[in-house]
């Protein structure tokens, strides 16, 4: 099979549009490798190529979609036919249409570092093996590492439509992750930490080792806390998980369908004045940085909550049309599904004080290192949440004994108003979110 350029394949399909048809073609092609090390040796070496095509065809507000994991011409034409057939069963939605170019300039960030595709297999293997060795060496209580992993991937993406959108982007990254097991007095704890970057030099292996190992060892001897109402400090990754839920309910999709607890609250105070939350894919420091959104509109900064007040919802072109506003360039898209709407690179405006100072201020509370059950424990429609939590007790301003097997519960609405302080310990998390610790008052902790 001769290799054709993605924009050429896409343009050919778009040019075949029949009268009255709007067509949007998304194509991707990528390669990835993963190396797993175990007990000083390669455990598995995985590599593969992948391809994808996703086609939306709209006639007079009726949309059909089809996709496939192959660019084989026979399959691509099957996808076009399926999309065409599917739209005949859709019912008219006057707001449904392909995104129109809006004249906003793309930030034109240089987000692809070619060096990431030149890393040798030998080097990848050496890093995975070294990561395992360093986890074992850091603490005598580490008895094994369930997985010590290197991964890298490269992909190109093209989006072409009858509305005049035509983009072609290329990206790559590398990542590492470790899951050490720590044992003491017959008890085992497992830790995990990973990092991802656009270039090998930007991976922080030291931090991965420290966070992964300490994540496991610090929980040894953890006990169930007593049920009570306490002040809680979320470390940045936990704060990011919760604010991610908040951001999800500030999307046009949820708002338009009446599935957001914040739907009717534009301009109102929904959080404490210390909280400013925004999405900024134009900030190159974030791994979530992008030049375009999922519909090919320029990426841009959007301020969702400014000093506690609800400033904007996020929109793609569909939700914007539906609510009579303009797209905020917030379409999220994978080739294999229709465009959605969401954050690309969430950030918080940091406070001033260090994590130690935040802890120092708490008389009786908990420092939450991680939560689980977020996917089952949060109802994004009602805002109720109840999730498993683990971390450390805070006693008279200092970190105390570890705890586990507890839940914290509240509502997302309540939590935003119960924020006592935003930490100054701002960092970009491996997923691209820029976040600080959050101190929250009066959360119900359930234990024994």
């Amino acid at each position: 099979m001769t290799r054709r350029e993605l924009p050429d394949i896409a343009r050919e399909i778009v040019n075949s549009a029949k009268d009255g048809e709007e067509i949007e073609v998304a194509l991707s092609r990528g390669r990835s490798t993963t190396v797993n090390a175990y007990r000083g040796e390669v455990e598995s070496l995985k590599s593969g190529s992948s391809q994808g095509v996703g086609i939306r065809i709209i006639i007079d507000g009726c949309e059909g979609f089809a996709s496939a994991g192959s660019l084989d011409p026979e399959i691509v034409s099957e996808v076009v036919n399926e999309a065409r057939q599917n739209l005949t069963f859709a019912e008219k939605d006057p707001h449904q249409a392909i995104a129109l170019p809006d004249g906003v300039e793309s930030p034109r960030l240089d987000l692809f570092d070619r060096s990431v595709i030149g890393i040798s297999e030998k080097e990848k293997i050496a890093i995975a093996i070294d990561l395992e060795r360093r986890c074992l060496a850091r603490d005598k209580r580490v008895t094994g590492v369930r997985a010590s992993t290197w991964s890298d991937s490269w992909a190109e993406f093209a989006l072409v439509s009858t509305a005049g959108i035509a983009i072609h982007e290329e990206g790559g990254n590398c990542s590492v992750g470790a899951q050490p097991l720590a044992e003491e007095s017959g008890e085992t704890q497992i830790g995990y930490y990973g990092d991802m970057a656009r270039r090998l030099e930007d991976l922080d292996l030291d931090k991965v080792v420290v966070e992964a190992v300490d994540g496991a060892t610090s929980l040894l001897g953890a006990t169930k806390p007593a049920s009570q109402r306490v002040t809680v400090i979320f470390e940045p990754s936990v704060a990011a998980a919760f604010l991610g839920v908040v951001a999800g309910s500030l999307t046009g999709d949820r708002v338009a369908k009446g599935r957001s607890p914040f739907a009717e609250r534009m301009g109102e105070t929904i959080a404490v004045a210390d909280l400013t939350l925004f999405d900024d894919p134009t900030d190159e420091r974030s791994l979530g940085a992008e030049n375009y959104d999922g519909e090919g509109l320029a990426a841009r900064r959007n301020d969702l909550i400014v000093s506690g007040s609800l400033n904007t919802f996020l929109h793609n072109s569909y939700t914007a049309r539906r609510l009579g506003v303009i797209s905020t360039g917030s379409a999220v898209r994978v080739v294999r599904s229709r465009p959605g709407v969401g954050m690309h690179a969430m950030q918080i405006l940091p406070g001033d004080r260090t994590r130690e100072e935040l802890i120092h201020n708490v008389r009786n509370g908990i420092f939450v290192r991680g939560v689980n059950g977020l996917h089952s424990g949060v109802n994004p429609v009602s805002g109720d949440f109840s999730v498993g939590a683990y971390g450390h007790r805070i006693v008279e301003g200092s970190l105390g004994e570890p705890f586990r097997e507890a839940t914290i519960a509240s509502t997302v609405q309540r939590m935003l108003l119960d924020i006592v302080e935003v930490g100054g310990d701002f960092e970009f998390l491996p997923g691209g979110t820029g976040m600080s610790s959050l101190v929250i008052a009066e959360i119900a902790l359930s234990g024994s």
Partner: protein
Amino acid sequence: MSEDLAPEPLLDPSLVETTLRVALAKGGEWAELFAEDRQSASSSFDEGRVDSMSSSRDRGVGIRVTVGEITGFAHTSDLSSEGLKEAAEVAASAATSSSRTTAVALNGDGLASTRVKMLPNLVSKESKVALLRRADEAARSAGGSISQVTVGYSEGRRRILVANTAGIFRADDQVRTLFSVNCVATGDQGLQTGRETVGYTVGYELFEENDVAALAERAANRAITKLRARPAPSGELPVVIKNGGGGVLFHEACGHGLEADLVKKGASVFKDRIGQQVASPLVTLIDDGTMGVEWGALGIDDEGAFTRSNTLIENGVLTDYMWDHLRSKDAGRVPSGNGRRQSYQHLPMVRMTNTFVTNGETEPADVISDTTHGVYVAQLGGGQVNTATGDFVFGMTEAYLIENGEITEPLREGNLIGNGPEVLKNIDVIANDFAMGSPGTCGKDGQGVPVGDGQPTLRVSALTVGGTAA
């Protein structure tokens, strides 16, 4: 009755043999070719109209080569002989010893065929839209407080072929059909949701035995009931779980910890515990991939092993773990039919199929009347477990208070949290009303596979309920 689907392999046997020979050419000891062709379609109905209809197709091959403890793996969507040769060479490169030529002889003992009565893709899309509409109408007429209804239909056909250098050449044709209804009810104190799902490893005949209108009414009533729900209590309480409503508890609380890959790496709280009493003597736990039409049923697993019924815990004693090819070879035993993968792009690992607790002897009504103060969980949501410690959490999507032996007020959503080994010991009554639960998707290391679970009504003497009420 039903007609066999034509058992036509996805790839020509001679091409498979050639590819496997290439895979072994660099010194590999064992090689496997996994081919997959998956076609699926889904449609959703939202805000009273057809929201979207979509179709998808995935076709590709994954090639695995092992040498000692090392696994090489490559996948491709290019099924031409050159594409397969290239993937085989990449997978083979994990082996470093001298090259050699190996004979590969395949024996086609298992070109299994799925017996479905009605292949969903042969049913008209009009008929599917009519089902969606019927469910939407039924949910909306369940009560004035129902403000939103989303209905979803999906069908999938997954044809696989597994061949390896030990001679296995087997195929399976897996057809699954699923229907779900989500409702939102609006009341004075905000919004509440209710969900119901039905899905089996069957074709369109799913709808001969399952009425989508009744399903929709149940989902709607669940949301309506929760409008008057009060906050769930907080702290340790006896918890009664309705039959078929909480198999996920066992999936999370101990199922994952009984997967041999986790056990081997010391990442399971159940390591070195075979033959020991790990649960209340009332508990017998089985994982069974052969269960007819259940959501986790398979003819063969994704490594070509025939599925089986495997007893994991018998009368509270741990009898066995679940195994895949690599781990069973290591332990010198036969695989248990639990080697599964999300797609041809993934390496297989140990996974559950249909996991369930068998019947006890008590009448279900007696379990409730015997509980003075506790929580009755009619439906559990998703969950998560830390296999190293056994700590788990999962959401209650329909729950009630039990007061003086009677089910009283509905409770708002909350999580249950506990520790697998402790919960297994704390099961103090099991009823005789076994039922399978809703179809589920189990995620492990980023791979999702369909699974089933089930259990009779049972009681855990103490579980931590993570509500907000005192």
